[in-house]
């Protein structure tokens, strides 16, 4: 039985034994990092964390001296300029913290930092994973704050909130205030309305009734003039752009009924509708706010793009010295040095050294790319194993990373037509409604001038498209909430409409249909005097010293490794060492002499090849199931991969995909999807890498895996937070159900509006019937939508 680590809950590796004392009981930990963190937490009396946390902590890696040095650069005033703001004597910084998983983490961080002298205020937000810290710079340095966070197991980076995010926060707060006013006031207005309803049946003194009307007017005014204002401004904005939107009849009804009610109050004639318009405003606002929140959460989740780029760079001065400068201040043709493990801060040409670079965040392929002199490297990619010097040839907006971001922004402005179609239908509906109301007004003015205004208002109230305007948003909001609970993040409102219409699904290979992690598929023994288990044990022992992704496939094997001596890692080739005084090595097959095979790794003893290892990426266990489901639903499934190997074909055959295409560049993928669209197919694309983000823009629906690059998650319409392909099935089912509910809602509200319209126009609907009808139809629609929450 494997035991799990007390701190991170990951299994403790066999042979490792270390403990921490929690409430008198020894508890196992999985590594020295977790041990140090757990001990710090317990020693400082913060054991509550372990009692109340609802999620496990991340595995802790110890800081290497390099990273510590980098932290010190955060104290540099020039570098701080970008992310530290002065608040009187104090300084304020926003840190993006990795590893916050639940409220207990927030408590832990706040307690740890408030224990430091000079830290005045800490505010941790568990939904955005950010912490705002207000501290006294003379007493404590920023690097020390970040270090003390690391002591309890959290990695932190300075974060620059962009204007867009700040603006969204302001909008969210404005929504909340409007909702608060509408909610509280509506309750009051309803109270007086009920008093008046009773008065209508049992008789009420005129002066009381008049008093109640004035009070209602007073209470309803803030709701209409403050909370309902966005509807009016939207309607006016629409009119200015020569468009009729749903906000127009909504605001006509609200403001019309409000004006009429005011008139009725002042002149003490006719009816007042304050309670209906207040409730209507509140419900409408609530729907809009929930929709906005779902989108806000999605964008916050993926907004930490800044983290991709380091804030500092090691610049080489002409006299050969090194100086740490702010990455932002780098100029064209500056020379900078990058050490292993560091993120490259700018695009440039390699001028000395050689290395392998992890470009997976750009390309989505997990194999590192070899880089020699004159090769181009890109900002945001990670330098693996060599010390390199690059000459910068692109800065700021021109870097590949920023261009990809720009591409996305452009794509966001031209969205699929489905949204436009819905808008057009709404326009027609609104136009018809307005025409009908005007005809009513004119007709009644001819027949019975004193009643004309009241009948027209009655038509607007009774036919007020509130059920109609609630029909789609409430259903969508409920469906989005359900999906969020299931780990499916919907970022665009058109998603649920698009999903049931899909006819084609295209999948990326690495990281999407497969896990993006290598495992050993087969071993071929070349020297028959060796046993497979001995070969494996030796290979595992050697690969332990390598940082290469392929090595991970070996170190995951559960065999007891052999003792080695004189280990040497040879960049670009592999690892060699002495085993029982015999030279052994593992690495690429052509390392010694001319042995060549398709194997990704070969084991050599005395320079002779002994065994070839064939590696493969593991297929996600849910992949066959989801392909089967999709094909059962009449969708054809296709594979579009950047990988050029045979693995693509094998995978396509294994999963029974309809077609496959290998060695696709991002443009190839985009072209393929566009040609499908041209054949009237509705295409969904599932992927994870940055290379998928252009094709995401062409596809009607784009779905990204949580494990993918931040950029692809930002572009995608849907993010699968649990990276489980099975979620696609859930998404499809919920979307189909949503479509049904929306249809029912529309039928319901159109039936109601259609039947009440002629009656109201003939002046046969007394105002209170109009109000009840309007409320009842809205409640019916909302209740119907709520069914989606229970899926």
């Amino acid at each position: 039985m494997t035991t799990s680590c007390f701190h991170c809950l990951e299994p403790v590796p066999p042979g490792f034994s270390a403990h921490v004392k929690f409430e008198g009981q020894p508890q196992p930990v999985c590594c020295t990092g977790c041990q140090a963190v757990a001990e710090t937490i317990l020693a400082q009396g913060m054991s509550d964390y372990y009692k109340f946390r609802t999620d496990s902590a991340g595995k802790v890696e110890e800081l290497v001296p390099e990273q510590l040095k980098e932290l010190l650069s955060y104290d540099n005033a020039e570098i701080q300029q970008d992310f530290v703001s002065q608040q009187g004597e104090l300084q304020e910084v926003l840190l993006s913290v990795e590893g916050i998983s639940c409220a207990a983490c927030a408590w832990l961080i706040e307690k740890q930092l408030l224990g430091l002298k000079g830290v005045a205020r800490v505010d941790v937000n568990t939904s955005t994973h950010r912490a705002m810290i207000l501290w006294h710079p003379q007493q404590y340095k920023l690097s020390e704050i970040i270090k003390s966070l690391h002591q309890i197991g959290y990695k932190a980076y300075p974060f620059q909130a962009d204007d867009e995010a700040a603006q969204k926060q302001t909008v969210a707060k404005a929504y909340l205030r409007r909702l608060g006013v509408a909610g509280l006031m509506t309750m009051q207005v309803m109270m007086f309305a009920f008093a008046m309803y009773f008065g209508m049946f049992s008789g009420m003194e005129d002066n009381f009734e008049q008093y109640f009307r004035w009070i209602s007017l007073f209470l309803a005014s803030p709701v209409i003039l403050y909370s309902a204002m966005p509807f009016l401004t939207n309607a006016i904005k629409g009119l200015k752009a020569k468009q009729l939107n749903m906000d127009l009849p909504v605001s006509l009804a609200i403001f019309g009924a409000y004006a009429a009610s005011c008139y009725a109050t002042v002149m003490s004639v006719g009816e007042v509708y304050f309670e209906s318009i207040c409730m209507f405003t509140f419900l409408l606002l609530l729907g809009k706010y929930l929709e906005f929140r779902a989108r806000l959460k999605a964008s916050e989740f993926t907004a930490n793009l800044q983290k991709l780029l380091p804030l500092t760079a090691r610049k080489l001065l002409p006299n050969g010295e090194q100086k740490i400068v702010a990455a932002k201040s780098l100029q064209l043709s500056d020379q900078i040095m990058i050490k292993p493990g560091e993120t490259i801060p700018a695009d440039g040409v390699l001028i000395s050294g050689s290395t392998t670079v992890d470009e997976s965040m750009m390309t989505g392929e997990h194999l590192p790319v070899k880089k020699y002199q004159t090769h181009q490297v890109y900002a945001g990619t990670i330098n693996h194993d060599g010390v390199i010097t690059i000459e910068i040839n692109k800065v700021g907006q021109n870097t590949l990373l920023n261009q990809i971001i720009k591409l996305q922004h452009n794509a966001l402005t031209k969205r699929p037509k489905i949204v436009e179609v819905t808008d057009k239908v709404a326009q027609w509906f609104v136009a018809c409604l307005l025409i009908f109301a005007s005809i009513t007004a004119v007709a009644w003015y001819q027949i019975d001038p004193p009643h004309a205004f009241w009948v027209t208002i009655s038509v607007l109230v009774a036919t007020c498209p509130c059920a109609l305007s609630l029909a789609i948003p409430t259903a969508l909001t409920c469906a989005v909430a359900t999906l969020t609970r299931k780990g499916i993040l919907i970022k665009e409102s058109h998603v649920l409409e698009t999903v049931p219409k899909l006819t084609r699904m295209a999948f990326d290979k690495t990281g999407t249909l497969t896990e993006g992690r290598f495992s050993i598929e087969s071993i071929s023994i070349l020297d028959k005097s060796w046993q497979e288990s001995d070969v494996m044990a030796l290979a595992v022992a050697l690969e332990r010293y390598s940082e290469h992704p392929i090595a991970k496939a070996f170190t995951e094997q559960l065999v007891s490794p052999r003792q080695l001596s004189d280990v040497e890692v040879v960049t670009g080739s592999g690892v060699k060492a002495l085993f029982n005084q015999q030279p052994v090595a593992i690495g690429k097959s052509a390392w010694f002499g001319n042995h060549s095979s398709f194997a990704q790794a070969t084991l050599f003893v005395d320079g002779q090849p002994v065994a070839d290892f064939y590696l493969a990426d593991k297929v996600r266990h849910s992949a066959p199931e989801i392909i089967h489901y999709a094909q059962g639903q009449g969708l054809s499934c296709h594979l579009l991969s950047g990988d050029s190997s045979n693995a693509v074909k094998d995978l396509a055959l294994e999963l029974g995909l309809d077609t496959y295409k290998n060695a696709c560049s991002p443009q190839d993928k985009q072209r393929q999807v566009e040609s499908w669209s041209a054949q009237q197919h509705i295409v969904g694309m599932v992927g994870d890498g940055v290379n998928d983000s252009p094709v995401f823009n062409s596809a009607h629906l784009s779905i990204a895996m949580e494990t993918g690059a931040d950029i692809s998650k930002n572009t995608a319409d849907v993010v699968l937070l649990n990276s489980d392909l099975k979620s696609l099935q859930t998404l499809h089912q919920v979307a189909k159900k949503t479509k049904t509910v929306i249809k029912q809602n529309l039928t319901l509200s159109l039936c109601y509006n259609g039947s009440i319209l002629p009656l109201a126009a003939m002046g046969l609907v007394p105002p209170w019937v109009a109000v009840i009808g309007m409320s009842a139809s809205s409640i019916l629609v909302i209740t119907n939508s709520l069914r989606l929450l229970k899926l």
Partner: protein
Amino acid sequence: MSIIYILIPIAILFVIIAIGVFFWAVKSEQFSDLNKQGHSILFEDDKEQHNKSNDRDKSI
């Protein structure tokens, strides 16, 4: 019955105060992270810590 001419305005005053409190809560970001605020009650020494930090605020 004419007492309602006085009581209702008083009730309205309370509502206005409630709205003021709500606006203040929105402004001080109490709604930005509902998850954390909901759990904070579980942690015992939160209060003491808070006082300490407040004291420190004053001393600075």
